[in-house]
């Protein structure tokens, strides 16, 4: 096992890794930028090193500074957390070259999953379902109709050069497809000077369901069940839970097997997440792999009893997985709310500033992952996550009751947070019934 690790991150995930290290009796070196110089959580590290100015590009994203810090602090490994350099294959390579263990997947796996086309190809090779669609640009109406009939309506047309919804059309039948094809091309031409459009099956009211995987350096792979992350706003996850209210044991097994096949195909190791869209009929489609620990990993920790960050470190140190697939049992229900320093009444505008009051929830069934306490400053330079409020109870109904109670207790002054938003979600009948999809927030909480 490692004697000393450098943590190349900040905020709650830095604290999370610090905790794992301390429980494994590993010394910690924490880097920080000038914006975090007075951060309270620095006290939790054995050593801290300032690596640069507030701007991420010159501190948390600056590879030479982080490697230099690792060298002067004489560490054996670097944990990158999530974000920043965590999915940077080049950084992982540099670590290897400098004889520092990168706590994460091999650079090749990071690179493969970092490229959408390659990731899709791997999934297909592994036999996992991907969203069906055209191989490339549609050349004619006829081709569009033939394809759409083949994969089944509804379909969506997308501009190859597109973005922001322009050049996009959903079609439910031949007529709307033909109209849409010409409209989309015209719009794409006007917007991007490129009329090329392609076609994909349109997944209606999908849920976002993802599988947590762990693999050791010997190629042993297990999955730790799923997380349902359908409560999103502009593709940013806000609430995650495990198990998914939408999965039965059969779909769970199929999705888990698909996830394992995909990461096995990429010779993956360490922690990773395979993301899927799940349609109301129970069909699922591969989206992408997140080749790192995720913000929402705690819900899986709660239901499996497995400390994912500790396992990441053990795996990187060369230990074999200590459990097999049949040892993984999901107990109860865990839900996480991401508490951000954002004003839900002002279109989720970030609200950096000084936290004057911090009365955190606690008690039975409550876990709080945070780097904040009263007096903390939230710098404007980085993401706005201030706490992850996680509950774990015997069943989903009790978990919701505990979350409502915990959200009611949570009292912060000095900055605005998303706590009031979460309170509303946990009062919403559809959410309580587990009847949601990725459009839930936009549909019910459109703030704009």
């Amino acid at each position, binding site marked *: 096992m490692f004697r000393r690790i450098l943590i190349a991150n900040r905020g709650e995930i830095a604290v999370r890794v610090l905790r794992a290290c301390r429980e494994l009796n590993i010394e910690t070196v924490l880097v920080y930028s*000038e914006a975090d*110089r*007075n951060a*309270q959580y*620095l*006290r939790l590290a*054995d*050593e*801290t*090193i*300032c*690596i*640069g*100015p507030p701007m991420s590009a010159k*501190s948390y994203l600056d*590879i*030479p*500074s982080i*490697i*230099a*810090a690792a*060298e*002067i*602090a004489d560490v054996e490994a670097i944990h990158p957390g999530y974000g920043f350099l965590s999915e940077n294959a080049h950084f992982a390579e*540099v670590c290897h070259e*400098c004889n520092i263990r990168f706590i994460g997947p091999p650079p090749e796996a990071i690179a493969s999953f970092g490229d959408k086309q390659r990731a899709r190809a791997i999934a297909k090779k592994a036999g996992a379902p991907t969203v069906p669609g055209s191989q490339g640009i549609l050349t004619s109406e006829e081709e569009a109709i033939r394809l759409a009939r083949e994969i089944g309506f509804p379909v969506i047309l997308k501009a190859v050069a597109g973005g922001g919804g322009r050049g996009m059309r959903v079609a439910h039948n031949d007529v709307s497809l033909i109209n849409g094809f010409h409209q989309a091309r015209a719009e794409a031409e006007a917007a991007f000077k490129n009329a090329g459009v392609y076609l994909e099956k349109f997944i209606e009211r999908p849920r976002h369901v993802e599988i947590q995987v762990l693999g050791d350096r010997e190629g042993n792979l297990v999955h730790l069940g799923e997380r349902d992350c359908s409560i999103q706003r502009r593709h940013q996850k806000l609430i995650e839970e495990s198990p998914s209210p939408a999965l039965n044991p059969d779909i769970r097994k199929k999705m888990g097997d698909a996830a394992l096949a995909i990461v096995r195909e990429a010779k993956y190791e360490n922690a990773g997440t395979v993301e899927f869209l799940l349609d109301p009929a129970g069909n699922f489609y591969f989206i992408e792999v997140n080749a790192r620990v995720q913000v929402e990993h705690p819900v899986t920790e709660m239901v499996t009893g497995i400390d994912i960050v500790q396992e990441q470190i053990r795996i990187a140190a060369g230990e074999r997985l200590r459990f097999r697939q049949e040892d993984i049992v999901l107990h109860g229900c865990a839900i996480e709310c991401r508490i951000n320093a954002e004003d839900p009444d002002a279109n989720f505008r970030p609200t950096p500033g000084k936290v004057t009051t911090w009365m955190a929830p606690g008690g039975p069934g409550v876990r709080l992952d945070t780097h904040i306490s009263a007096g903390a400053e939230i710098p404007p330079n980085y993401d706005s996550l201030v706490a992850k409020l996680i509950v774990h109870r015997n069943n989903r109904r009790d978990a919701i009751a505990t979350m409502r109670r915990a959200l009611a207790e949570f009292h912060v002054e000095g900055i605005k947070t998303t706590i009031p938003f979460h309170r509303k979600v946990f009062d919403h009948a559809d959410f309580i019934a587990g009847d949601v999809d990725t459009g839930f927030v936009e549909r019910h909480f459109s703030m704009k």
Partner: protein
Amino acid sequence: MTKENQPKSAAPDLGRLKKLVNLMKDADLVELEIEANGSIRLRRREERIREAAQHVAWLPQPHSGGAPPLVPSASAAPATAPGDAAAAPPVDARAGLTEFKSPIVGTFYRASSPEKEAFVDKGSRVRPETVLCIIEAMKVMNEIRAEMSGEIVEVLVKNSQAVEFGQPLFLVRVDK
């Protein structure tokens, strides 16, 4: 701040300094002094000021008490050896000086190789293009230039010492 002729500390190495600071944190010390002759002075306070404590951890501050500074043993570094220390300017006289801070994290070298002379020393005149030191980061030797004109009043870190981003390296009397 009326005492004069205080010996000036060479900044001790990061690891040791951190250990002492951690000790202070654990024991709620506001002052910890270890003299070269081995004598020790500690002072506790009920409510310590966190920010101040953290500051002490990293910046070789002008020494404010009546006792000698933190480093217990004579420095082996070429400059700021104990002999020089006694000649250090009094604290008050430093008001007009500028701290030249490290622009990167890495290992500090005073010369281009162990046999060579230091780029600058106390009393050296520097111009913007003058190389003050080298900081090694990822096996790359980064020449650090003065980018100002003036006189080196003090070298604050030892040769081959690890330095953080923003850590003061030199005290400079900048030309008006």
